[in-house]
């Protein structure tokens, strides 16, 4: 007989591990969670510029949100800019211009200017934090339909 230099537990351990890994790999086969953004009536924010979307669209019902948040001045969100493109509360507001027209979707490729995703996150979460109202965790806005 060959000298046994391995303890008997090795096989059992391997079996349990393989089951574990198989379970994890199965998940790869499941369909991705991201859902297509719905555009009707401004209930979500899912700018095409940021496609493909990796998380569920951020739910945002424009009028309800602003009523609840008592936002009357469009410029609070649709902010204006200075000549060289900085945010300027005194400048005329920018409603009608898509955010993506100024904020590049491509994170970081342009030296100046806040990229689009960061602009959204800072605008929404920043205000929610400041007001101590409204969601700031991922799933609070990017809720599954």
């Amino acid at each position: 007989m060959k000298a046994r230099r391995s303890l008997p537990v090795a096989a059992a351990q391997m079996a349990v591990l393989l089951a574990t890994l198989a379970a994890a790999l199965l998940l790869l086969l499941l369909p991705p969670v991201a859902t297509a953004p719905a555009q009707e009536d401004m209930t979500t924010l899912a700018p095409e510029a940021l496609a493909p979307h990796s998380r569920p669209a951020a739910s945002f019902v424009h009028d309800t949100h602003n009523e609840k948040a008592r936002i009357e001045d469009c410029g609070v969100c649709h902010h204006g800019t200075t000549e060289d493109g900085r945010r300027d509360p005194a400048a005329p507001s920018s409603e009608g211009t898509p955010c993506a027209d100024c904020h590049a979707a491509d994170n970081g490729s342009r030296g100046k200017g806040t990229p689009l995703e960061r602009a959204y996150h800072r605008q929404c979460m920043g205000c929610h934090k400041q007001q101590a109202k409204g969601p700031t965790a991922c799933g609070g806005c990017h809720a599954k339909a």
Partner: protein
Amino acid sequence: MSATEFSGIAERRIEDANLIRGVAALTRERIERVVKAVTKGEAGARLAVYHETCMRCGMCADACHYCLSHGGDPTYSPVGKMEQTMWKLLRTGGKVDPDDIYGMAQIAYTECNLCRRCVHYCPVGIDTGYVMSMVRRICHRLGVVPLYIQDTAHSHSGTMNQMWVKDDEWIDSLVWQEDEARGEIPSLRIPFDKEGADFLYSVIAPEPKFRTQLIYQAAVIFDQAGVDWTMPSSPGWDNSDMCMFTGDYEMMGRLKRCHFEMAQKLKVKRIVMGECGHAFRSVYDVGNRWLGWKFHPVPIVHSVEFFWELLTEGKIKLARKFDEPVTIHDPCNIIRGRGLMDKLREVTHALCSNVVEMSPTREHNLCCCAGGGVINCGPPFKGVRLAGNKAKADQLAATGVHTVVAPCHNCHGGLEDIIHHYKLGMHTKFLGDLIYDCMEKPGAA
């Protein structure tokens, strides 16, 4: 399975007169004081970090021949033994009962050979050999050391050698062997205290005590190789060191200083040591550090390496080769301790025409179970070595050969016991035995 199914050392207590006596004299206060003095006073970051970062992953269980031989009993795994000893002492801050110290001493002195095979298994790099040595240090300072090995330590302090050899008996033994050898090689001398010789040859005290023919053989080999050598006539000739293994580091320091200073006094260029593993460890690796030398004031060469030099430089010529198949046992102290696995092979292949490797081999070899002072704990613990190394018996048997080359005294003792107990029908040989048998002896009468 319940968590208590393995009670560990408590269920395998072995009676030892000195452990019983030592433990009887302990109090909890004294234990706590000594544990703190060692773990906080002598040791520092190394011990603390090992304790903190040992992940209890159990990967080292497969490494240890004790654990393998006991069917994976976790109380014999490296981490299982640290758990029952040092980890418990550190966790409790030394608040344990005298009775606990008995078990810890038994584990540290008789269930770990400090062979460091487990180093090859631990991803974190925990040194079980070091941790067990620190347990022994605590036990030594508590006076709880197995009787037989404590006796050898006493001999070291009384005589500066391990075997109560008196000064005149040492000289007598050398002269006697010189006399015997002159029957074969008429011009042979064993030079005493020759100042400025190329090397000092030092041996362990069991050689003059029980195995004087090894001194005879060495003298013939050196004489016929025409090398410039000498042996010392006064204390310091013994390179062995059981104090290193009991944890008596103060005494270990005295022994190593004496040995090095002997070589310095004689102005030799190097120290060549006989085929012993633990003595090599004490001089090459442990004693020098205690004395504050990063390396060695006089270069240290083990016989395996020296024989390799003699053969490769052509100073020894072989008249014949050993024809029977042999296998090689790699002794931990010169392989994991000094990396001599390749030289050991080159020498063995030069001497033997048929070499069968063990599996595992080289630096992964299983320990003989005698080293680390375990065989020196004497008859009460012989069964521990035999039961604890069934794995070695299987490994030896699998080679199918009858001769084991083992360039270490402890390995010889341990392997012979295992071979006998498991009826393997093998025997062990030193390289010196083979060289003496196979070499040309131009000066022979």
